């Protein structure tokens, strides 16, 4: 059993993401077995952070996430903020605070968790694609490898 280097050769961002995923998944399992406000809130916090942690694990290069720092930061804030906000409003069935035709808690769900990330994620992916996700040099290496393996070059 090798535990001396628990993550292998990974940078800071990936290390943090892996720690979050490991702790978060274990906490979620425990929370599913216990009742109570602490279990509920913990589940909200870790579930809402999971998607951003997974993206961070995938997109980091040499310990950095470059142009995705701001979009992913905003995504994390939206998910956590809306999740915790809905949790804090859970016992309130009052109809005093409304937004966009629905009570506030429902508005956080619809306009926050759903519409909030919609353009952010799609545009962030498209606009950073050539610089970060799949660069020209990556594609060239891929084509060379593909041609070298005998498959037809892609258009």
């Amino acid at each position: 059993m090798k535990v001396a280097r628990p993550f292998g050769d990974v940078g800071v961002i990936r290390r943090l993401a892996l720690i979050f995923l490991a702790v978060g998944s274990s906490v979620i399992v425990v929370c599913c077995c216990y009742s109570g406000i602490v279990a509920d809130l913990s589940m909200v916090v870790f579930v809402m952070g999971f998607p951003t942690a997974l993206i961070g694990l995938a997109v980091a290069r040499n310990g950095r996430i470059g142009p995705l720092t701001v979009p992913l930061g905003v995504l994390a804030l939206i998910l956590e903020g809306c999740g915790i906000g809905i949790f804090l409003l859970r016992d309130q069935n009052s109809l005093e605070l409304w937004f966009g035709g629905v009570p506030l808690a429902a508005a956080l769900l619809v306009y926050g968790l759903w519409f909030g990330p919609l353009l952010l994620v799609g545009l962030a992916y498209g606009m950073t694609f050539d610089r970060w996700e799949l660069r020209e040099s990556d594609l060239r290496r891929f084509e060379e490898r593909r041609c070298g393996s005998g498959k037809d070059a892609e258009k």
Partner: protein
Amino acid sequence: MTVQVSSVVVGSAVVYLALVTMVGIWAAQRTTSAKDFFIAGQKLGWIVTAFATMSAAFSGFVFMGGPGLMYRVGVASLFICVPVGFTSGLLCWVVGKRLRLLAGLQEIYTVPDVILCRYQSRLASGLAAGAIVIGTIAYLGAQLQALGILVETVFGTRALFGPWSLLGAMILGSIVVVFYATVGGMVAGVYTDLLQGGLMVAAAVVVFWYCLQAGDGLEAMSLSIADSDMFGPGFLNPFGTLSVKTAIGFFFVFAVGVLGQPHMLHKFFMLENPRALKWLPLVIGLTQSACILIWLGIGLAVPALVSRGLLSPLVNPDDAAPQFLLSFTPGALAGLVVAGVLAAIMSTADSFVNIGSAAIVRDVPKAFGRQIRNELLWGRIVVVGLASIAVIFAFLYRDLIALVGTFAFGTFAAALAPAVAVGLNWRRVSGVAASASIMTGVVVNLGLEFLSKQVVFEWLPDAPLARGALPSATALAASFSVLLVVSWLWPADPKLGLDPDVEFVMDV
């Protein structure tokens, strides 16, 4: 309120079914190899792929199951679908690029192929194939159940055939699905997905508009619901009628679990060019969100109309969408929407019969080190068998479409998401960790689901879960936990190394 079956609606549905059948015949002529049958020859542009991905993801679950679930539990049901705001980006960032690059370097037709390639473990890929077969039967069952309910309502078979009506309607609907999936494979699937995707988006947006008209706007609908004795203000609170654990569990399964859905991952193999990924998340996100409007719209309109006495309370919540369409939209539009809903159901059902047949015909034999000679022929034969088993499963499970679909989605999520998502991004994950994770996901999900629902064996304990906790959410978290802990304790052996193509893809 008795709903008259409209000849316009029936006519539209029949025309659509005929159109789909013709696409199946056209596609059959273009399906000449296993590569064509399983991944449409890897020749798809990004628009077709975007619509195919969206169509495959959206189904009777969204169009009928969603409004039905919302009728029963309120806006809490939206935790299932709101992740579409970011899941397309999550998919492309976490797995999309690597899946497509790998499929360009090796013969990758299925998710178990990816697992075999990544981990060099026939055990891991065999377990993945087994999980896919189980999940396929359940997911296909949910689609055929939705199809059956819709056919019943549109063709009015309930009055004629009584308690056997649903089974008959499911069999009738599944015959069309099996026909074009069998002859055309994935080529039929993706081109019908293009037709179906466009129809679904158009239908959803128009229906949402009619919901706002029928209900006098979102605020008026919300106020009617809040003032009613039957629903009350708790209906509009995300944690009002469902516990925090149930609602957040839904979000977890449907947000993170998307990374393990074979019908979505499969679409990345079909892209003609990796560059086509660039605007895929935006298009998928927007089209999926347009489709979800039907869940929100009918989900609020029907309770509001029931509260105002304009619609009878529903005996079966899954009747919400058909009842609204047939009662509050013009006949021609209802026909278009029924066709759109049929489209949604069939596109997903078609994806699953093909994926399930690939798992049985290709992946399971591979796990035993064998290969079937005529994969194309056997693929077609297995499609018929799978559909039959799925019909029986759905008929026996007897629950809301959305809940059957949740079980199926959760099975895929718990089994595959950690092994695929983390495994493609962290070298330390070994075949042992992947196998342990897949096994944990399947056993925990099935075990907890069984203990939660079974009533036959009284001596068996209840599922050891807190009130409201979802078996699938627990299984998904456990599966991640096992993968990460086992990877930490027993990392991949650096001497054995990764496949060079996998090494390359993980470096990009």
